[in-house]
């Protein structure tokens, strides 16, 4: 389950934020926000994606750059709001 989620989020980040010709590798520990791959403005669409996909509501005060900085952090954040993960 956790692996499925990891793949789902990693694939989304690659598709949504990297250019087609990018050779950037992304794994569960790659910094996303602090490295500039996802800027704070674009983070909104990541939050919307997570909320729709996992049928959760992430409060704005929890949607911090730190909480979104790696796929692992995101999985942890989603886990806080989604039962059974």
């Amino acid at each position, binding site marked *: 389950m956790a692996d499925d989620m990891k793949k789902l989020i990693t694939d989304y980040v690659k598709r949504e934020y990297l*250019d087609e010709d990018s050779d950037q590798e992304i794994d569960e520990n790659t910094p996303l926000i602090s490295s*500039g791959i996802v800027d704070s403005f674009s983070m909104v669409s990541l939050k919307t994606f997570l909320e729709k996909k996992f049928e959760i509501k992430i409060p704005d005060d929890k949607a911090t750059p730190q909480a979104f900085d790696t796929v692992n952090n995101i999985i942890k954040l989603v886990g806080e709001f989604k039962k059974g993960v």
Partner: protein
Amino acid sequence: MAYSNKAKEFYGTELTGIKNNGLLKEERFIKSPQRANIKVEYPVGSETKEVLNFCANNYLGLSSHPEVIAAAHKGLDERGFGLSSVRFICGTQDIHDELEKKLSEFLKMEDTILFPSCMEANAALFDVTLDKEDAMISDRLVHASIVDGMRLCKAQLFNYKHSNMEHLEEKLQETQSCRFRMIITDGVFSMDGDIAKLDKICDLADKYDAIVMVDDSHSTGFMGKNGRGTHEHCGVMDRVDVITTTLGKAMGGATGGCVSGPKEIVGMCRQRARPYLFSNTVPPAIVAASIKIIDMISKNNERRDKLEANALYFREEIKKRGLDIKEGTHPIVPVMLYNAKLAQNMAKDLYAEGIYVIGFFFPVVAQGQARIRVQISADHEREHLDKAINAFAKVGEKYKILGKKKDEIIAMYGL
């Protein structure tokens, strides 16, 4: 007095952090009018130095043009210094109405409303026209004022990869159930000088029934055959719905901005836009000078054509000398250096050579995309351009980057 030591220490630490991270923005004191050659005191306290300015948005070189200054004087003499009022109380003069009509005519839009700046026009537009059941679909590299404007609006926010039309289409498909969709883009993107694909954006807007909004701040006055902006340049004059733009760049460079578009949207701004309702009116001297500028550039394309020729010359020559630039046609010419420290050091050395330019790096541009942004003006003469080109070649030689491409520069200096 409640400004405690705790607060003092907190802000002081924040500022130290900004400085230690190399992100401190310093002001340089200019002791002359804005133009191609300026007198600058930098660092503060040092002797005044004459340098060539290659970092102003003074595209048409009108910031200190004698006819513009004379028109501003006339406005000051005939309509006074300030109006001590917002527009809807007692801050609207006949010349404000005249300027709004002239802007509508120049941009070929139905109606126009003035704002104190384009920042405020962008802060107003989305909040006034869109609500929770609507979607804002924005290019990811839009100007910070648009980002802030969207943050003030309750509509759902989506963004697409920079100038990526497939990604924009995905977002339009995702938002089919929304009441209104607005596609939001800069006409010219300020860091790269690249132009939005407005023809394709308008095609998608037609296909998915979306409103097209363009911030044309880096275009109004000189992009397109008659300088009307990117909608003219891209051949979509009647297909862009709303334009926001500034009078603070090519159009004299003082201040002021506007929303230009359908009379209903402009009407809504006039009734509900908080930055319009609660900010003072644009001062008469600026309004009078702006009217003069529209008259000047409507009658004569000379400055626009000179700017175009200058940009082309600079781009070609700087490439010949081995500098790596972002390709394009716009007077914003990014000289790519990739490494932040290299961009800072080169800008410093260029200043010593009498060329005033600034290095840009993360977070202003993406990580690993550090550059010096050169801005060309119609005020530049050929000898100014040659001096800058020679200085870039000299400083580029010092850092051994001439003829080097991205990978080689990164290999030498890192990201």
